[in-house]
């Protein structure tokens, strides 16, 4: 009898960390959903790492075209970075508001996040349009191809994130803070924070290292 009890305890505490949970059962849907989305985000980051690797290899192959230091504007990048950082913060505020079911702070946080995301996208789009207008489009050199695909891919993710953000606001407006809406909100917050992590890599590797070389 005591043997089985010990075996059961060992099973409940496989790493001997002193926290015994008797028959916890399957994880809740909230955990399963968020964990699955976390794995997706990691695979997304792996995909971005391929674009980063391509950029690292091709950043010197300018084919007579402009190099990074000639086309990057530090000031714009700094504004974009601050926008994304602050939007990550307000997104966190909105998810706290969703957890405590406070509509006013939720809408406020999401609206500010949306505006900051749109400012980011506007600056990035104008930068791209300006480069293409000067004849430095993605077909000019291997460096510009890798630059446009990496930064453009991140921009597409942010665009998708803004659309998702608007649908989250609409869902809370129409359905309230239901359990399934809260799960989607948690996934959205994860997505938005992960985009910010990718942007840290982009501004460090592409813009700052790229203009240093």
């Amino acid at each position: 009898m005591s043997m089985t009890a010990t075996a059961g305890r060992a099973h409940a505490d496989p790493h001997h960390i002193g926290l015994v949970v008797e028959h916890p059962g399957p994880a809740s849907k909230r955990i399963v959903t968020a964990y699955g989305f976390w794995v997706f985000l990691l695979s997304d980051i792996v995909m971005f790492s391929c674009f980063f690797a391509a950029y690292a290899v091709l950043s010197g192959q300018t084919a007579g075209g402009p190099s990074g230091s000639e086309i990057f504007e530090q000031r714009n990048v700094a504004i974009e970075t601050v926008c994304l950082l602050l939007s990550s913060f307000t997104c966190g505020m909105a998810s706290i508001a969703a957890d405590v079911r406070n509509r006013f702070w939720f809408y406020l946080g999401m609206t500010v996040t949306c505006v900051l995301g749109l400012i980011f996208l506007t600056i990035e789009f104008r930068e791209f349009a300006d480069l293409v207008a000067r004849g430095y489009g993605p077909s000019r050199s291997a460096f510009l191809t890798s630059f446009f695909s990496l930064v453009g891919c991140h921009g597409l993710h942010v665009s998708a994130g803004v659309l998702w953000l608007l649908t989250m606001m609409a869902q809370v407006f129409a359905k309230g803070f239901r359990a399934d809406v809260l799960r989607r909100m948690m996934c959205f917050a994860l997505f938005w924070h992960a985009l910010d992590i990718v942007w840290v890599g982009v501004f460090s590797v592409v813009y700052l290292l790229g203009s240093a070389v």
Partner: protein
Amino acid sequence: MSDQMHVRTGHDLAPGEEEQHSVGERVLGYVVGLGLALVLTATSFFIAGTDLVWQPSIPVALIVLAIAQMGVHLVFFLHITTGPDNTNNVLALAFGLLVVFLVVGGTVWIMGHLNANMPPMDQIMPMRK
């Protein structure tokens, strides 16, 4: 104490989920994260444009600052910790990082050697004729 532990660790934590905290503590966590991230970002932009430091150290400094900032984001915004209720999330992250380092490190390593061992383009063109 031990009763509390039982309640708290009834389940793992989902990624992005914090342990039970009051709203004030959670907001404070985000504020600290935002402050650290802003300081690291400002340092990056300052380091990139300055000539106060030894120039060859700048790329290394930028990469270290970027990794530090990613760590800040993971801890304060995504709430990935080393707690026992976070084991699955950390394991998934570790595997993701392994793949990222294999892809980026392997590519840079191999392509760097290829570049170093390849004759310049004007010598290759006559060979292809």
